[in-house]
């Protein structure tokens, strides 16, 4: 029998000031999985996390937790789901009292010092030198790690992380990533992580959910290009990307439309390869090559001007082309493959 998903979201719509910011028709998240949430700023990642953390009630629709419909403050989830925001908030008290707060709410105060010190150790901080510090005696990275320790001490069933490494230094970022993954190893915690760090997510996630303008946009990264688009002779339009280079698109259906190109539909050629015969071309530089754990595909990020395109390398290309970051490449695409959102 297939295991029941920990979360099921059905027909969810959330509005701020009448404006829909999140619309999710159907979403399931499996127990003990690691799910990545990816999307541009304002795509609804944080709102979705707040819904999954039962902090806000959706305007309409239902979030099911272990098969039961749940609302904020429900006893079913209060002690099982925890959420770490991008900007950590520490209460105006010592690190020790910040970390023990959640356990205190649960009435679990046995061996509290040992538990606090252990959770500090999980995020790479020494209890001896940090437990007594006041909330203002920490750097940004330390504060974020203390906030994570305050969640890890709860051994949560679900840990939701909103850009956990966005505002911290390299070391803190590594420790936060390691500690989050350890939660799954140790307690089978389900992790939902919103992050721009696609490389990390691609490496650890069982599933990546892409969000765009508040809607689910499939399980694969896609290229989204915002306007303005300027008209070209012959009915086509163009988005200027860098000096002398532009992405040619069909006529946009409305003023605010964004062009979408599937990474599968973009082909990458090294300059030594045979030049493709059809479609339009762009020149760019490979910035990253990432192996997608889920599919085994290699995703190439190619920088053109300030825009980073993502293209999936076919197995044939992966095998025969010698592509490496820093190399100048040619991207080919067919304007007919462009969709609009």
């Amino acid at each position, binding site marked *: 029998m297939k295991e029941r998903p920990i979360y099921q979201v059905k027909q969810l719509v959330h509005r701020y000031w009448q404006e829909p910011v999140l619309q999710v028709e159907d979403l399931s998240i499996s127990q003990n999985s690691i799910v990545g949430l990816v999307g541009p700023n304002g795509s609804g990642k944080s709102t979705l996390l707040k819904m999954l*953390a039962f902090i806000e009630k959706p305007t309409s629709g239902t979030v099911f937790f272990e098969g039961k419909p749940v609302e904020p403050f429900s006893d079913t989830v209060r002690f099982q789901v925890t959420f770490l925001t991008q*900007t950590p*908030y520490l209460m105006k008290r010592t690190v020790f009292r910040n970390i023990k707060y959640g356990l205190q709410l649960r009435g679990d105060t046995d061996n509290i010092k040992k538990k606090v010190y252990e959770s500090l150790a999980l995020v790479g901080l020494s209890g001896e030198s940090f437990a007594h510090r006041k909330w203002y005696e920490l750097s940004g990275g330390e504060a974020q790690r203390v906030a994570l320790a305050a969640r890890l001490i709860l051994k949560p069933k679900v840990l939701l992380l909103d850009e956990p490494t966005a505002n911290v230094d390299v070391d803190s970022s590594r420790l936060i990533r390691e500690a989050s993954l350890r939660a799954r190893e140790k307690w089978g915690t389900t992790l939902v992580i919103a992050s721009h760090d696609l490389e990390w997510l691609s490496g650890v996630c069982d599933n990546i959910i892409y969000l765009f303008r508040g809607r689910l946009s499939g399980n694969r990264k896609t290229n989204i290009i915002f306007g303005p688009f300027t008209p070209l002779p012959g009915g086509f339009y163009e988005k200027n990307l860098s000096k002398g280079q532009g992405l040619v698109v069909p006529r946009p259906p409305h003023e605010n439309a964004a062009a979408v190109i599937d990474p599968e539909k973009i082909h990458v050629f090294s300059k030594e390869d045979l030049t493709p015969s059809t479609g339009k071309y762009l020149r760019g530089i490979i910035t990253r090559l990432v192996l997608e754990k889920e599919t085994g595909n290699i995703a190439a990020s190619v920088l053109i001007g300030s825009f980073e395109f993502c293209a999936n390398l076919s197995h044939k290309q992966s095998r025969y082309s010698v592509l490496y970051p820093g190399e100048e490449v040619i991207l080919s695409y067919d304007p007919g493959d462009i969709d609009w959102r």
Partner: protein
Amino acid sequence: MEYLLEGFIKAVQLIIEGDDQTWSAVSATLTVSGYSMGASLIIGIPLGFFLGYFSFPGKTKIRLIVDTMLSLPTVFIGLLVYAFLSRRGPLGDFGLLFTLPGVAIGQTILALPIVIALCATAVEAMDRHLRITLISLGASRSQLVLTSLWEVRYGIFAAALTAYGRVMTEVGISMMVGGNIKWYTRTITTAIVLETGKGMFAMGIALGLILIAIAFVVNLSVSFARKK
């Protein structure tokens, strides 16, 4: 100017030797301000929290009314409370006119807008991430409210101190509602008015110094509590 200096010397003597009339006024002041502060904090903190924390229709209008009430003149409050508590007034049967509880009612009306407005301001300035953090750590609704209040405790201390300062030093309400009855409703401030009227500057200055000393002790205790 010599009488001023004589006044100070006399004041120190009165304080050191202990004077029954002086201590009666001190006791009346502490009792009545205790009642009024207790009432205004119990009523004002929840209302201030509600006003600062939630958004609801008419919030700005209520805020405007509360802010305007910060400027209520004490004699006007005294007049209103007198009118309500006098024999002919709607609350005349309770016999509260010329009593300390009667004065406390007036002082509560004086302190309440201060507590509500300053608590609401403190709560409004609270980091919005606090709510998310507390819920995500497992707080129930009541734990959310109590911990949020604890987080803005310094703002609430400041509100209480400001209100206490105003209540302790007002004359209008104590004089009109209390009637300045010796051994009974005479507070430090009404005593100062009376003694000054009689030309007894030393007594007036002594009482003034005691009032400042009480304010100092209260502030010192709060500042000690903050450090803890």
